[in-house]
């Protein structure tokens, strides 16, 4: 087992493909892969996760009907 790149090419391609399928900009796949790479190099802390999540949120495109939302009691 060798350590060439932190994330396998197949995984990189899968992330890019999934991001395209959900009609999201390319930057989303870059940020997901960056998060995965950081995780693969060691455990990230809560602050790192928050930072990465917020970076992803700014890149995610939500259309007016997007996202499934459950009904729940307030």
């Amino acid at each position, binding site marked *: *087992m*060798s*350590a*060439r*790149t*932190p*994330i*396998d090419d*197949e*995984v990189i*391609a*899968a*992330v890019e*493909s*999934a*991001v395209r*399928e*959900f009609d*999201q900009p390319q930057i*989303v796949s870059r940020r*997901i892969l960056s*998060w*995965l790479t950081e*995780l*693969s*190099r*060691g*455990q*990230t802390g*809560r602050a790192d*996760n*928050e930072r990465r*999540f917020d970076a*992803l*949120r700014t890149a*995610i495109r*939500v259309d007016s009907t*997007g*996202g*499934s*939302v*459950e*009904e*729940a*009691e*307030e």
Partner: protein
Amino acid sequence: MKVELLGWRSKGLRCPDFDISLTDKKDRIYRVALIQMPNGTGKTTTLTCLRAALTGEAKEWSPERVQEFRPRESKDAFGEFEVRLRYEGRPLTLSLRLDFDMNSVHYATTYERGRQERFAPPPELLRFLKVQVVRLLIFDGELPQQLMKATETEAEAAIDAFFQLYLMGEVRAAIDEIWERRTSGKTAKQDKGYSRRRGEVERLELKVSELQALQKKLRARLDAATAEAKKLKAEIDERVGQTADLRKNQAELDEKIKNADGALKELLFALMARVRAPHLLHQRFALALSSLKDQLDRLRLPESSSRQFFEELAQEDLCVCGRPLDDVTRDAIRLRAPMYLASDKSGVVNSMKTDITRHLASESTGGEARESLEQLAARVTDASHQRDVLEAQRKAITQQLIDGGDEQLRKLQERLDALHKQARGDQEALDDIDRDPFNDNEQTSNCLKWWRSKLDEARDKLAEITETLELHRQSEILKLILNRARDLAMAGLKMKIVSDMNRALERILKGHNIRVKGIERSLVLDRQRGASQGQQLAVGYAFLTTLFQYGQHEFPFVVDAPVTALDTRVSSEVGQILPKVCPQFVAFVLDREREGFVESLAMAAKNDVLYLTAFDSSERNASLMKSLPKKDVTRTPNGVLVTGKEYFNNVTLPR
């Protein structure tokens, strides 16, 4: 991630006490380490302890399970097993201590921060130290069958672990955690809550808008009424003024009313000023203020502006009191200065103290007897009454003419009265709209400020849920992407692995016609039923070596009897492959496995091979004990360890 197995040490267990080192003199691991042991020497114990040390699973062992490791006829209360690793270049030791009297197992971990009396590998390594992964690394003889058993998920679990697909799950978990954290205090997180809040904002917007329209309408009507009233009053005055006497009376009364208005205004100002000076309202306020002043910090100056004052004072010849300063008193000033310095808020406190002193002093020493609040209020009432009387007198003049039959004047006056009545009603309604809220329960009122505050609150809540919903939708999209990416990655990797495995199998099992059709949860062979045990083992190797080849981590691969079930040609093929795909291959071999396998293995490893032969010093190995080489022999109380290729290749171990 890189993990190397440096060695292990066993003591007081159902295997000889050995300290096996897998490193050379430079502390570098051998690419291949072969440990030749006769059956019954404790291989199973060693491998089980290796797995248990790496996974922490022995904490769950039953008393019977613990007793299985106690040497027969031993009275020792403890057994020990220690695994030495190198994780990312740093030493890591995991050890087990079996208490045969208490039937318990105690773990210890030695890593960067020293020794911890528990199973505590670094967190990032811990996720690989799961039973399912470790049984791939410390190869379980039953694994090949399980890799192909439809009900097992070993194959998928292995791909997940080696290609880090679990990381997508970790990101998903982090997103869930962030969502929970950010919305934990929020009362509404879903669309239903959004609709309700949107509806509430719309309802309040409508109410505020209605009130604003009413306010505008009332103001306009009041303005119109005022203008008309002014005009009517002028007309009435003009009509009244047509009679000379009445005109004179009216003018006099107007003057008096004007003066009465002025007097009333002055008195009202005086009353308000009195109310604004609480210490003048009642003696209790004055006492309370005096008490407050006494309780405030004494002799404190704002530090930011006053520190320099003390510093400069200490450089003067004379103190502020006029006495000469010397070095002792100067030092005392510097030393004691902090006692008189406080935060900048002390400036405000000082100012309060000064104001209280000034106001209280002016009251008590002013000399002029101040009028009491009650007296002032009574004068206001009198002045107001006086003005009303004058107004009534003025109106009586008009009434006198009306009573005398002036029809035109009557109509004008009636219209004026009606306007005043309407204006009073409108003014009251307007005052109700413009006033401050009495309390938080004004649902039935027209208090605009209250309704606006409710609208602001509702808008805040709507904004909160709008943000929450956006967060929810973004989180959901991200999780859907991650799920899809994992599925795509797993499918792609399976295809790639199947293709590579089949290429390896064509070489390893030449002519056997064994091919992998696919990977579902387990490996699916083209003709599964016909695969022999040896063929299944070869398929297992093909799978694992393919994983090793593509995965992103370096782990040792430890196998017991690696080629027992394979024929010589297949053994040789396996031997050629393993060192090329494993950074560290450790095998417990039987002497009958040497042929074909060891030679090809050594060649593929470029002779970077450690040869060890180990056996216990029991009676059945007496002949071996008599023919030991002269060097590279380590004796322990119950075993012998011989290092070296020659002995390894030539010794015949008892069956």
